């Protein structure tokens, strides 16, 4: 049952993604983007990563989607409803969506080895390998003790984004 809900969430996220890129009205796109984030958050929550799931909602829905809303409010976007209401990207988007679905299915099959009879060893997740800790502890250990290099590199990424934004917006 749980696994069924999980896969249903994945499908919802995929269709919402396709809607985001194919819809014409920006507000509809934004709502669907929020649906994508919510589905992702639910998927994390189902896997018992409560902290990451909640952070997803707080950061993406609470902050980033609202920022997009502000942009839509402030930029005068004229949606011309007299034009035919199909997006010219619908076909490529459908192809990409179906392709990613098929790819996911294929990979899933090859991993569980339904047809070839091979055994796949699924490793326990981070949370179970640090079973004594909550997932906040686990994240902290992973980020600050196991991969400090990645943390420094992410800091550098933030820095280069700050540098790049200024000339990009001042053209």
């Amino acid at each position: 049952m749980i696994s069924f809900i999980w896969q249903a969430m994945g499908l919802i996220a995929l269709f919402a993604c396709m809607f985001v890129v194919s819809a014409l009205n920006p507000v509809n796109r934004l709502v669907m983007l929020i649906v994508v984030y919510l589905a992702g958050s639910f998927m994390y929550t189902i896997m018992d990563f409560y902290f990451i799931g909640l952070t997803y909602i707080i950061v993406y829905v609470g902050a980033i989607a609202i920022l997009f809303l502000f942009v839509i409010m402030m930029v005068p976007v004229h949606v011309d409803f007299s034009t035919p209401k199909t997006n010219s990207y619908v076909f490529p988007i459908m192809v990409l969506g179906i392709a990613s679905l098929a790819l996911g299915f294929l990979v899933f099959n090859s991993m569980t080895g339904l047809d070839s009879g091979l055994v796949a060893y699924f490793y326990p997740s981070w949370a179970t390998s640090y079973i004594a800790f909550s997932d906040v502890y686990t994240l902290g250990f992973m980020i600050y003790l196991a991969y400090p290099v990645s943390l420094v590199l992410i800091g550098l990424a933030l820095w280069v984004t700050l540098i790049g934004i200024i000339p990009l917006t001042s053209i």
Partner: protein
Amino acid sequence: MILGIGLLTSAYGSFLAMPTGIRSTNQGGLLMIRTISLILVASIIFEISTLLHLPDNSICVFMDGTIKLSAQITYLLIFIQTIAIIILQFGVEGGTGAQLSRISGEVFLVMLVNLVALIYVLVGIDWLVTVVAWELFNLSLYLLVSMQRPAGSKEISLSASVKYFLLSAYTTSFLLLSIALLYGLTGTTSYDGLIMIVQTGEVSLWPFYLMMLTFLFKLGAAPLHGWAPDLYDSLPTYTTMFLLIVPKSAVLFLLLQLDYVIGSEYGYNLLLVVGAISMIVGSLGLSSQWRIKRFLAYSSIANLGFILVTINHAPSYYFYIIVYMVSTLVIFGIILSISSGHNIEYISDLSGLYSRNPALAYALAICFFSLAGTPPLIGFFPKLVVILNLLEQGYFAILAILVISSILSCCNYLSVIFTIHLGKDCYKETIVISYRNAIIISAGVGLLMLPIGLYNLVDVLCYFNHESMLIIAAIPLMTPVKSCKL
């Protein structure tokens, strides 16, 4: 590398500490070039001292097994950083041609970040480090391609850079997926997990294929090459030079870090197919180009094919990359230097270069002859080694494709040389280039003409058996015949 980050911070500090007037005018860029060149020199000295303290054939793993440093990687880093220093020096002149605009300081900062990311991509042996460094590497490239646009072609360059951004982000997600699969299958995120997958051959190979998709896209190998000519054509020449040389050689070196996977039959077959398609597409595409940067982009695709098919033999792989990068650097240096008066966009703009500046025309011809693989020049030897390598392994079909596409691209290079030397001149005035560029270009051309190739060849050929050595012995006999025909 910790030192590198400290120096990076100090570079930013010096950038911040500049008075606002300097930062906004042209001097800021020059100051950044100087600071960043100094940082790179310090970093190279650091790497040389590392080499001195590293025992032969030893590998140093630190940072809890996420970073690996060996003599081989250190040499590669020194090569990339040296090339980057030379490219930075070209930036002093201003890289956008006709409007003579100087390059703003931020561009060089982004280049420095790109170099730091590239170092971590090469030294990381844990996929979590590699993927974060790969993201940083991509991010700086997106910024680089969208920061500077030539005034005339704003829309084209915008569309090309957006295309690059979207496609690159899309393929990077495949890298993430492959790492997730790798973790699911093997329970480790270190590079060793890939060995398990490929060598046992029992578990799924999907992680490997998805990973290769990302890397081959970044290289612009043929089925995934759609973005490359558009992007290289629409950017300023200076940015194109950086993009064609530094990130490309870094990704090529990264492929060889995975040699235990590439060397296996799955990996090598994939790269043989991709390499053959790249050769065909590159050499066919060359013949229909009239814009010079598109021409060089297709030439890079064709050469990438030659590089990829020899990936299972490390010495010839490195040899080809280094020779190709040096020739590209010199070609771009010449184009950059002569485009200060009139912007060089079309191949026909080079027409009559001989009557305007004979020395530069000779230099450009030598570079193109070297790319075409004419025997006395150094560009001949990597191609020879690649052909020998394929001959030794018995891949005759690939060999035939290689020879045919090599002949095709050779014809196109010759037509460019014909335009340079015998075409009618479209502008009358003589070209004077700066002392700095002249030194760099003449050093590069000297490198292409020196028989350094022969020394390297001896090292490379130790690998081959006696029949191949007989072919080598026959080459001096064939050389005059070949050059007579040309």
